[in-house]
């Protein structure tokens, strides 16, 4: 259980991505069920909004969470590498005369 909770803590964004995808698919299915259940366009359009458009947002959120998890992983690895190389020059002898400060610290 502890292993699962720690895995959940590390992979929270991928778990969130799967959850958002499930919510999006559920909204899509419910919207489709609502639209197909009535012949009147006036009754179908609210389902288009609450089902189709909301599903589109949640599916987009799922993709965003998954890709941002990949970005964060790459960020961590690059920072770890940068830290290792930075420790090689702790006395300010960084490349091109710049101090070996951590990078990626702002825009």
């Amino acid at each position: 259980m502890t292993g699962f909770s720690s895995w959940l803590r590390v992979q929270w964004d991928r778990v969130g991505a799967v959850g958002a995808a499930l919510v999006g698919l559920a909204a899509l299915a419910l919207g489709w069920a609502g639209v197909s259940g009535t012949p009147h366009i006036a009754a179908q359009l609210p389902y288009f909004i609450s089902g189709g458009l909301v599903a589109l947002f949640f599916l987009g959120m799922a993709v965003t969470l998954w890709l941002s998890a990949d970005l964060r992983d790459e960020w961590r690895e690059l920072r770890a590498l940068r830290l290792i190389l930075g420790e090689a020059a702790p006395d300010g002898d960084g490349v091109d005369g710049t101090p070996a400060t951590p990078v990626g610290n702002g825009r």
Partner: protein
Amino acid sequence: MSSTLSTVPAPATASPASASATATPSWAWATAPAEVRAAILGADAPWRTGDLLWAGGLAAAGLTGLALTWYGASGQPDWPDQLPWASLGVAATTVALLGLVSWLVAGLRRVRRLRREVVPLLAAAAVLRSARATAVMPIGTAVVAAPGMTRFHRPACPLAAGKPVQPVRPDEADGAGLVPCGVCAA
């Protein structure tokens, strides 16, 4: 993709910007555990508070617009009167998705900037280590160091370039308490 990389330990030192981001929390953010904050913003992630506010603001505005358009459309009995609401709903969805895209773009830009900085260092380290493996350093060959440095370098080391370094013998460097450079492996 790179799911295994998430186990890479986070660097111990936080950048100044991330330190300022975590030092000035706002609203419910202040109550979030430190590791959660660091995983979303700060040293463990390429995003800053402004990115979160921008992306979250756009997404919240889009979702609010979606709720309003649904409410407006469902209150109209005729579908021609609902069409403007549906159009507004599409626009609101676009705004919300733009917020998500802005989050990704901000992270991608910072990761790319960090990669541009790290890759040349890695390449230099690889070249120098390769050269060290193939070349035999004669006994007594000088390495270089500058006053105030705690490490000594090979003369061609990029970390020594442009510095007021002086040749020293390895045994002298050892005697002075200097340790070898980790990049050029002097």
